[in-house]
């Protein structure tokens, strides 16, 4: 299994899905899927590092917290992120995200993400042992 991300259809908004070897890996991929709603991730230079912490005993709510923390950092710092390192330990998430300030000419960002929703929110280990993390995000 190769870690990867994809989008899934939602009538009004967009679904993000991350698959990884570990829970943390799936969270990293889900974050990439969210970036890809806004911009091609390869267009974003991983130059500046931002640290993110969140905690929640529920794994699925933790995924929404993680994506919402990124939405918040993107909005307040006016940044986009393209590289993520996540560690999850007993409901505590510690992450580093790398990116750069929005460059409207170069990035041509498509749409702002308003927030991660609890719709189609799912975090589970699949039959092949890989982890899946997904939800619909509001754009």
């Amino acid at each position, binding site marked *: 299994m190769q870690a990867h991300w994809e989008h899934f259809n*939602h*009538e*009004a908004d967009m679904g993000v899905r991350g698959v990884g070897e570990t829970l943390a890996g799936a969270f990293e991929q889900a974050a990439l899927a969210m970036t890809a709603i806004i911009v091609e991730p390869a267009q974003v230079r991983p130059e500046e590092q931002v640290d993110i912490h969140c905690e929640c005993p529920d794994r699925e709510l933790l995924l929404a917290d993680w994506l919402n923390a990124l939405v918040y950092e993107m*909005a307040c710092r006016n940044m986009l992120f393209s590289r993520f390192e996540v560690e999850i330990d007993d409901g505590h998430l510690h992450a580093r995200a790398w990116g750069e300030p929005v460059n409207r000419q170069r990035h041509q960002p498509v749409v702002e993400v308003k927030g991660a929703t609890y719709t189609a929110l799912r975090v589970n280990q699949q039959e092949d042992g890989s982890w899946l993390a997904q939800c619909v995000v509001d754009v």
Partner: protein
Amino acid sequence: MHSDYHLKRQSEFSWRIDPFGKMRVPGIIYADEALISDMDDKVFEQLCNVATLPGIVQAAYAMPDAHWGYGFPIGGVAAFDADEGGVVSAGGVGFDISCGVRALRTGLTIDDIESRKTELANALYRQIPVGVGSTGRIHLNDKGMTAMLTGGARWAVEQGYGDPADLEHIEERGCMAGADPGEISARARKRQQDEMGTLGSGNHYLEVQRVAEIYDKKIAAAFGLEENDAVVFIHCGSRGLGHQIGTEFLKYMVLAASSHHIDLPDRELACAPINSELGQAYLGAMRAGINCALANRQIITHLTRQVFADVLPRADLTLLFDVSHNTCKVETHTVEGKKRKLFVHRKGATRAFGPGHPDIPETLRAVGQPVLIGGSMGTESHILAGSRQGEELSFNSACHGAGRAMSRRQATRQWKGRSVVDELGARGIVIRSPSMRGVAEEAPGAYKDVRAVVDAAEQAGLAHKVARVEPRVCVKG
């Protein structure tokens, strides 16, 4: 129709799902046969979920533009009674609190504008911050933020953005009472501090339009509209502040649901009893979010006026009306002959008070509240008026837009932004947008036929058609 739900036809334009399982009230959908056939079963599933919430009164309603949302369907309406354990739902209002549309008359005809259209489009695009990463010229400190959250459009007018006469033509007269800035977190404040007077992205836009057809001359005259008039539509919401309030309270309400003995059929329907600390906190925060949206549209109105003054000095931009789509408001409605105070949630639905309602500005009271229905870029938008039957049918609610017919992903597979801009350009519509992929995602073909939606709303009796407007300039987020 291939639906797993048993839809009983009540009349030509209304359908009913009788309560089953944990539903406390029926689900009622207003649509014609074609619209209902095209609705995803998810709409009915979400509507039935809403019908299970505590304290819901009469029915859960879906408007003709209903589509699969999160928690509530988009185009969903539900009213709750606090004294019967009724709830307020952060999911039922959504992330973009008080997203809405305002319409301005310009005092010009389209012929006055046509030769300056490109210049006007360029100036609007330059002056009005739009798209991802744009910031406004207003930077609010904590004190200013609190004043804005309390005062809404009234605050904006006091700051010099617009005219006191504007306020009369905004729901709540420009200022939502009961806002509690104390419930707005530091994160929500930070996210908003540079975003006042910005349009945002996605389906948000500013359009200069031509009144293409008048359906009701008398009401159009009361609205100050004639065929060929140039009007402006502004569609945007409460920006980062509303999104952050929605995000935070959704989580609080999910985590507190079991302590309130609420069994959520879908976590996105997160709610709390109106008569609870959390319910009251959310109402205070959500109302502050409404004020943020009203202030935002007021500032954008001011910027639009400045652009018109530069490009077309004869213009005189006056406010026709300002409606909000994603709200929960306390209203008095007659239910089975009894007046009741209800908390009406509208998620992607427009309030549509009928003639004589005291909350309509005096000059428009005789004809009903203007109901502004934004269509997709490049097609058409509609102006309607609230109907007398609206209260009985849907707690005075109508549709809010065309509604998407396909996902953003499907749209980008089907269209290229550049060719959408060129095709619309060939029809005389000038598009300005920072993102070509954004334009493709918003391509007119990705939306339902707004005329079918509006016709169904009228035929169902929710609102009355007044005028159809067509875009000439579109600034797209």
